[in-house]
């Protein structure tokens, strides 16, 4: 997919990444599964699947249409070729589409959610609902794109899923004839209009250098022949920020409306997804041969670890994270002009009365814990048991988001203090 790599861009000073102007980030399967699971907890399986499907269809539709326009894929065969190559390139598995202007069907192999759910949980619990809402949304968006249909007219139902112990994944696509009302687009142009000035923090030169190297490295990372990216010891996806953001905020707003007493619970779980991200993705990156070869194995110095985490966040497109203050062993202040959550919230919902950067909040907490409570020189194993020993019960650090651009503040700020 040599045609796609040149379409990547970075919003300078903000470390937000775009493909053909559509925002994307990298997340691993631990984050992705926990994120989707939390949506179902908050919304129930049925509504959860609908919200995930709609967000996926909308985000994938934006990407396919943007790529089609830039690459000049103007005929249905050209558009079908682009769609079939895109999903595996992003590490989401393969999908074979058979479409018409009334719908069609799709068959998936190694689809990220179903495949990684089975790998992680399949031997422990039986699943009752299919796992691949994102791929369903992609298939629907691809059908609309290929057939030249208005956005939102195709619905996809996953009627077989490997997470349900079916032999493969299969989707039925059906045209409803009802186009979805389009929401304000969150792309590079809209984001540029929403971000302020960049920031500089401690250890800036090192962070910037590693982040740049990392970004170069991930440019060479793409799905293998099965559409899977197994890098840094995790299953990685190049994923659409608008999918994550729309689903999180729709779920949070739903809880705010329907059971406000449980809002802190939902917020804690979405923060927890950020903790999982840093522990699993950042942690495994730091221990990987890739990191050892490109940067050097972690020395165990907490400040170096925090600095490395900021570089990883930037390299993965999470935003321009900086270490604003660090009092060893006591306090960490993490800032970013915006993270990948903020532009979406401002564009779709406008101002908020409270901070809204859930991934950033969880990530900051996990960074402090990983920096101070993990003996990196002893090459620790980042197992589930180790995770529970650090994050189950009362955690030794507490995080609070004190500034948020969705509230009108100049930047995002999370203060993490030792208890």
């Amino acid at each position: 997919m040599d045609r796609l790599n040149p379409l990547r861009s970075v919003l300078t000073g903000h470390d937000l990444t775009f493909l053909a102007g559509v925002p994307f980030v990298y997340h691993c399967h631990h984050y992705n599964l926990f994120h989707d699971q939390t949506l179902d907890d908050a919304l129930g399986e049925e509504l959860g699947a609908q919200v995930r499907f709609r967000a996926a269809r909308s985000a994938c539709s934006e990407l396919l249409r943007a790529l089609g326009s830039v690459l000049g894929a103007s005929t249905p065969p050209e558009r079908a070729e682009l769609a079939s190559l895109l999903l595996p390139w992003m590490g989401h598995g393969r999908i074979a589409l058979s479409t018409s202007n009334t719908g069609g069907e799709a068959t998936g192999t190694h689809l990220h959610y179903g495949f990684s759910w089975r790998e992680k949980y399949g031997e422990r619990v039986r699943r009752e609902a299919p796992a691949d809402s994102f791929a369903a949304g992609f298939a629907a968006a691809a059908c609309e794109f290929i057939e030249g249909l208005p956005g939102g007219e195709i619905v996809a139902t996953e009627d077989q899923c490997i997470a349900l112990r079916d032999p493969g994944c299969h989707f039925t696509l059906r045209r409803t004839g009802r186009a979805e009302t389009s929401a304000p687009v969150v792309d590079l142009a809209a984001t540029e209009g929403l971000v302020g000035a960049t920031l500089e923090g401690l250890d800036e030169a090192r962070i910037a250098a590693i982040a740049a190297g990392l970004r170069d490295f991930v440019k060479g990372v793409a799905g293998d022949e099965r559409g899977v990216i197994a890098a840094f010891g995790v299953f990685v996806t190049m994923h659409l920020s608008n999918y994550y953001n729309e689903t999180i905020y729709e779920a949070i707003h739903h809880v705010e409306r329907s059971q406000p007493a449980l809002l802190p619970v939902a917020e804690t779980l979405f923060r927890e997804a950020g903790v999982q991200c840093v522990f699993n993705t950042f942690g495994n990156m730091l221990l990987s041969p890739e990191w050892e070869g490109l940067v050097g194995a972690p020395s165990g110095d907490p400040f170096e670890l925090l600095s490395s985490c900021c570089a990883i966040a930037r390299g993965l497109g999470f935003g321009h994270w900086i270490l604003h203050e660090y009092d060893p062993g006591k306090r960490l202040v993490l800032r970013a002009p915006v993270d990948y959550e903020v532009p979406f919230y401002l564009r779709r919902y406008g101002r908020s009365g409270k901070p809204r950067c859930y991934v950033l909040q969880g990530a900051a907490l996990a960074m402090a814990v990983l920096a101070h409570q993990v003996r990196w020189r002893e090459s620790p194993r980042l197992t589930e048991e180790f995770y529970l020993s650090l994050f189950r019960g009362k955690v030794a650090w507490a995080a609070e988001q004190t500034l948020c651009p969705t509230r009108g503040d100049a930047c995002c700020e999370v203060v993490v203090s030792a208890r």
Partner: protein
Amino acid sequence: MSAVLPVLTRDHACVRGMNWRFDLPPAAIEAALDALPSAGFLPCPSPEALPSFQSPEGHRVLLVRRTGRAQIRVSYTVPEGQRRLAAEAVFTAVVRALRPAGLTAW
């Protein structure tokens, strides 16, 4: 360079049993770059600091030039219970490939 007896141990991975580690003297990495292709390992595109190869069975071997760390990344298509055996097979193939250069004591 004296011969070493590398040991295979479990390495970091989110996915159980997927990554396995052994260590070589850093100087042995250069010899490995020549020896592995002759043993059927296919060089993969990778940064200079981190040469990597694919085994005939589809497993990856990553080498860290500066430290000599080597990682076998067993293909995720191998069921969990068989990953250790797959890693051991790759490990044996690598060690055998390095033996003519006097790098391993096997």
